[in-house]
């Protein structure tokens, strides 16, 4: 039997953060994870995170993973991998399967940070090889460098469905449709807009009727739903695909807590069976804490903060941190957590239809139903202005807690203000120098630099671009609209990459000036010589 002050179960964003804080306070800490590699799902998250500096905004998920591992190492928290916790028994005895052996551990406190598992919806053909979880697609693409398929249909328009669709497209997969049974897109509008302009169509409220194939997926049929979630006859659509990706939410993996005898709550708002916890993340068993998705589905940024809090509470329970210091740290982290839990997508707004932004502007209904802001809607948002010369156009239309653009601009021409969810506005008294920092720093890829008149009837649009091969200066291709429809021929005039852009290439295209407010993406295309 090995003894530690604290056992943490799960080395994802929450568990690592918890272990770091407790170890920093002086506790002896061991973190178990059943996987071969630590980091939970962080190493698959290759997009830039939302939030503000304190939430590590605009840093890509996998880089946050490396930062956490380094911190855990420096703090002296031991991470034991390929270690599956089989059970939590009386007096905080923990039985762990490490490789092929069973070992016993004991601690004075336990933090459970086991995360969540993907949900599934059963439809005809759902067990066929080729029907996979969206998380599986992410794992294949970003950890193992393999395409899950060539032609993919995505079910689910939450952030996972939207982000994974983008990642599939980034690697050259053809995402033929994004389907959701809900009448409105569930995830961030900017994530939806990003894939809409790449040409992925949204079908809402539709769902899968049948997946076809004998030994593996060869096609899928979707159909529209009426308000009582019944198929409307005659609305069926068929797609030839080899893969169907399912992104229909997550459920907390709280079995260990239930087994330990913690009081549980069946809470649909939190994603399912969660432990009942007090304001310190403590379960009904003194000394056993829960943090991250296991105590309610959110996302990695809030899981990291909850983890740090749990680490501090456990350290206090163990006697390593005095009440006063705990309170100070708690208040600071509470503030950071509150920052993330604001805006339209705050947990308290889940399921609600929001009609207006905090600024009193009508929400883009087209964005919610189709995945892009319509031409006639875009002008009403404060980030969209017209002026002489190059200037930012920020197509950020929903209140989400995110503000890296404000710090990115060296000329300070982007204003969000102290409220992190406010829509960004352009300070028209300051001249934009066209550096592209805001374009590359926006986690939602919603910022464009537009010069509406560069002479000879042409305009230039600078946009974020993350697909290989990168276009070359001088080449001509097709400019796509927000809806992903071809609008005109575009010439690439500048391709900028740089360390500060962190892998987001900043591409400038030249189009006829009547398309300055319409062209929002560039598609490489072999054009006939005559054009």
């Amino acid at each position, binding site marked *: 039997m090995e003894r530690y002050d604290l056992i943490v179960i799960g080395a994802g964003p929450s568990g690592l953060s918890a272990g770091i804080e407790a170890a920093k306070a002086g506790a002896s800490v061991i973190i178990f994870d059943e996987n*071969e590699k630590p980091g939970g799902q962080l190493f698959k998250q290759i997009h830039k995170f939302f939030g503000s500096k304190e939430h590590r905004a605009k840093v890509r998920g996998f880089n946050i993973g490396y930062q956490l591992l380094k911190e855990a190492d420096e703090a002296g928290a031991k991470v034991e991998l390929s270690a599956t916790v089989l059970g939590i028994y009386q007096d905080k005895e923990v039985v762990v399967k490490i490789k092929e052996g069973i070992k016993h551990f004991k601690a004075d406190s336990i933090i459970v940070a086991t995360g969540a*598992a993907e949900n599934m919806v059963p439809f005809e053909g759902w067990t066929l*090889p080729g029907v996979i*979880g969206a998380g599986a697609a992410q794992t294949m693409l970003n950890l*193992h460098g393999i395409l899950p398929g060539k032609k993919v249909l995505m079910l689910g328009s939450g952030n996972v469905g939207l982000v994974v669709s983008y990642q599939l497209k*980034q*690697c050259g997969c053809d995402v033929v449709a994004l389907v959701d049974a809900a009448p409105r897109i569930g995830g961030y509008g900017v994530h939806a807009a990003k894939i809409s302009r790449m040409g992925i169509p949204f079908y809402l409220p539709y769902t899968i009727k049948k997946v076809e194939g004998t030994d*593996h997926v060869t096609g899928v049929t979707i159909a529209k739903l009426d308000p009582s979630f019944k198929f409307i006859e005659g609305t069926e659509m068929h797609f030839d695909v080899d893969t169907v990706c399912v992104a229909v939410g997550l459920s907390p993996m709280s079995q260990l807590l239930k087994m330990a005898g913690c009081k549980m709550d069946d809470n649909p708002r939190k994603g399912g069976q969660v432990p009942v916890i007090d304001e310190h993340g403590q379960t009904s068993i003194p000394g056993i804490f829960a943090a991250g998705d296991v105590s309610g589905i959110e996302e990695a940024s809030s899981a990291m903060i909850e983890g740090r809090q749990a680490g501090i509470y456990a350290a206090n329970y163990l006697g390593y941190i005095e009440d006063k210091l705990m309170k100070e740290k708690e208040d600071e982290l509470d503030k950071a957590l509150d920052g993330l839990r604001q805006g339209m997508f705050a947990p308290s707004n889940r399921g609600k239809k929001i009609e207006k932004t905090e600024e009193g502007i009508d929400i883009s209904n087209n964005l919610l139903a189709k995945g892009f802001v319509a031409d006639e809607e875009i002008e009403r948002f404060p980030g969209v202005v017209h002026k002489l010369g190059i200037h930012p156009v920020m197509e950020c239309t929903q209140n989400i807690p995110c503000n890296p653009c404000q710090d990115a601009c060296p000329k300070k021409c982007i204003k969000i203000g102290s409220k992190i969810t406010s829509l960004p506005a352009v300070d028209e008294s300051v001249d934009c120098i066209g550096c592209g920092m805001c374009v590359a720093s926006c986690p939602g890829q919603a910022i464009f630099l537009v010069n509406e008149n560069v002479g000879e009837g042409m305009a230039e649009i600078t946009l974020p671009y993350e*697909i290989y091969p990168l276009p070359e200066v001088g080449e001509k291709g097709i400019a796509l609209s927000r809806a992903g429809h071809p609008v005109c021929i575009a010439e690439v005039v500048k391709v900028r990459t740089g360390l500060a852009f962190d892998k987001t290439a900043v591409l400038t295209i030249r189009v006829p000036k009547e398309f300055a407010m319409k062209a929002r993406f560039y598609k490489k295309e072999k054009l006939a010589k005559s054009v």
Partner: protein
Amino acid sequence: MEVRIKEHPILGEVKKGRLVKFTHDGQVLEGYEGEPIAVALKAAGVLVHRYTEKKHSPRGVFCAIGRCTDCVMIVNGEPNIRTCVTPLKEGMTVDTQYGTSDEPFVKELKEAK
């Protein structure tokens, strides 16, 4: 169908172990040492990992992180090995699992003939 990503726009060059040989249902295939068996199979175009005991329906990878156990196969003679989290080693034998056996179901065999 080439499904391996050579260079990823965000993650850069995809790094793998050395190329090794293994067998799948007796046929020699190649994959990279250390990558999950399921990934090597996928690259080789193998999608069906097993057939279920009762309904004989085909199953493949679903979660890819070792949770759902849909992708289990017979590896080096041992059944129920989660191929999505088991690293590939040189000379491994990987066989389709029928129920929990490596013997194809008799009915299907007859039908195939």
